[in-house]
């Protein structure tokens, strides 16, 4: 016996087997106990409940949903809401963060001071407190009757943010948007690989296809654009950004921007000075040095950190539950209360977030390797 354990090779194998075995034992016993406990509550574990009608409503959904719909559909509504909230917030956070990150590098002391005050203020206050603040602020806005009107038929009230919309079936709007985005990506690739003309043609084609799709999907007997107007106590026409969504977007994008600003700043500081000096020596204008040397380098330097930050912000969308936005996590927790299918639903939650994170990581890694400079290692 001691002979076997004294041998390093066997000892290592035994150690690893014990480690994995211990973990397996732990998870098996957890599953067994859970099954027992759930059986005692009279709930059968399984996937059947996904086909049952929920009987509760969701206040905000991009896909049609009613209380007669199934759990599967409710979960999908939540998932789409999370992706929607995440995409908007992350895009805004990256845009704002880039601007503030560049302002943080300004040699102008006041610009620098303002940008760093922003970063310190939004970074050092918990996200959930910021979300509470924006939500309370929005719900304390004037009612629809006395809404704040902005030029372009935009209204701000305690019912949310109202803006003009297209009178087009939502499926067609979504497909048109996807076609447009795909066309833009294809155009960017074509103009890099082939010629600018091909890229332009691709973009024009995408625009035409998207336009045709919108024309096909237009609701009959209505104008193309639906303009909102105040109609007594409520709004008619247009599309309403509910207060919960608006507050969540505000909170996540302002909070995220303060982190992304620091990433962008670090990226600019990491560009080798020799590159910009070489640009100057070649007689490039400051604008050309910024757009053709520094920004392309910064994008490549910050992409891995930025990927982590974006995943982190996607996970942060779960704070929507605190202010009553029906994101994926919110729908899951409501489903747990109503169906008692804890294990299955938690499993779905884990799979949903893994799917989101894996997709982001996959796309960003592809971009990263596609734009990597040959022969340039950090």
């Amino acid at each position, binding site marked *: 016996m001691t002979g076997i354990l004294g041998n390093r090779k066997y000892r290592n194998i035994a*150690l690893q087997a014990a*480690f994995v075995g211990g973990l397996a034992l732990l998870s098996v016993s957890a599953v067994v106990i859970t099954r027992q406990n759930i059986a005692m509550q009279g709930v059968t574990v399984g996937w059947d409940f996904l086909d049952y009608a929920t009987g509760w409503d969701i206040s905000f959904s991009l896909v049609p949903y009613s209380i007669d719909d199934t759990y599967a559909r409710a979960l999908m509504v939540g998932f789409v809401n999370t992706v929607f909230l995440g995409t908007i917030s992350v895009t805004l956070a990256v845009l704002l963060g880039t601007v503030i990150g560049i302002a943080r590098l300004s040699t102008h002391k006041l*610009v620098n001071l*303002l940008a760093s005050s922003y970063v310190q203020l939004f970074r050092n206050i918990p996200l*959930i407190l910021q979300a*509470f*603040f924006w939500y309370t602020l929005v719900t304390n806005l004037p009612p629809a009757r006395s809404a704040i009107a902005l030029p372009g038929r935009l209204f701000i009230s305690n019912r949310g943010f109202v803006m003009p919309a297209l009178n087009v079936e939502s499926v067609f709007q979504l497909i048109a948007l996807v076609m447009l985005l795909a066309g833009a990506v294809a155009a960017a690739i074509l103009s890099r690989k082939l010629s600018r003309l091909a890229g332009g043609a691709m973009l024009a084609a995408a625009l035409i296809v998207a336009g045709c799709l919108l024309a096909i999907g237009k609701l009959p007997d209505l104008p193309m654009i639906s303009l909102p107007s105040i109609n007594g106590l409520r709004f008619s026409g247009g599309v309403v950004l509910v207060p919960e969504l608006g507050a969540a977007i505000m909170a996540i994008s302002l909070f995220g921007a303060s982190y992304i600003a620091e990433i962008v700043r670090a990226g600019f500081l990491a560009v080798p000075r020799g590159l910009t000096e070489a640009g100057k020596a070649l007689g490039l204008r400051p604008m050309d040095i910024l757009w053709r040397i520094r920004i392309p380098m910064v994008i490549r330097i910050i992409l891995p950190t930025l990927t982590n930050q974006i995943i982190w912000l996607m*996970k942060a969308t*779960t704070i929507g539950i*605190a202010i009553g936005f029906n994101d994926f996590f919110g729908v899951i927790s409501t489903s747990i209360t109503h169906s008692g299918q804890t294990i299955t639903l938690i499993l779905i939650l884990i799979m949903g977030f893994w799917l989101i994170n894996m997709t982001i990581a996959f796309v960003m890694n592809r971009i990263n390797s596609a734009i990597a400079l040959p022969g340039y290692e950090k």
Partner: protein
Amino acid sequence: MSLQVTNGMLPRSLFDRLREDYFSSARDTLLTLLCVSFILAVASKLLQWGILDAVWQGGPEDCRGTSGACWAVIADRYRLIFFGLYPYAEQWRSVLACLVILVTVVLSCVPVFWSAVRLAVLWISGIASFYILMRGGVFGLSVVLETEWGGLALTAFVFSLTVLLGMPMAICLALLRQSKLWVIARTTALIIDGVRSLPLLSILFTAAIILPLALPGFLIGDKLYRVILGMALFFAVYQAEIIRGGMQAIAPGQAEAANALGLSYWQVTTRIILPQAFRFALPPTVNQVVIAFMETSLIVILGFFEVTASGNAAFSSGGWNNTYIEVYSFVALIYFFFTFSLSRYGAYLERSLKAEAH
């Protein structure tokens, strides 16, 4: 007699400095004017609202007609925000307990305490005295159960216990992930990446509601401690990656030299690898601690009465409904005070470590 050396330049007068820094070109002048007018506009609004027009004393009716801030709500409700539902007569214990945690955190920033044993003794005794002060039952203190804890004290408790439990977990996870036994390394990596890809809220939720189903009855314990365990796990997986980063920054020759000298795995790990890894990883560690402190606010969703929740309660009753901006600003200020000072300390550490390296 000493000569002042001013790198070849004469000291600039104030006028010259202003001109060169703020008005050296048309663009700079424009930016200066824009920034100054923005800062003046915001500052004057804040001054008018927050100080000149503000109401400092009285009840909700005193604030009704004013256009300024209603700080009277803080004067009226500050005990609720700081102490939650802790018994009124015993709130001095809550103050002392928070001070104990504050002193613990401040002392751990002093390099004298930077050894595993000293830090462990400091934090365990800090949290133990916090617990005795808050819970009572000994030394003639009346018993106050955890369910009655609230406000800043609860935040401090969750935070300190998260760090105390999370740090050893992080070290274990980092060492397991760096293990030469690849099955262990891969399995740990899978666990770390799996937990990292989940939102903290879902882990806390699982700990509070699902875990009791998966544990035998004698292990279930209080909801508060399960949630703290979940927080510690989440802290640990992030901190483990930070420590691993620090371990990878150590030149491989060091471990090889130690092995060649015949040191055992534990000697190499505890005397060579970990001390240096922590040194490299110090600034991101401080950053992670700051994030852990801010993330304690998430437990408000699970129904705990920590400082964010007590802020919500402070303005949602007694006619203070319109004072949410004042209350949220006050709560934000409490968080800001701690996170800002800690993150400044982290930035200072980063600078001094860089200066040492050169």
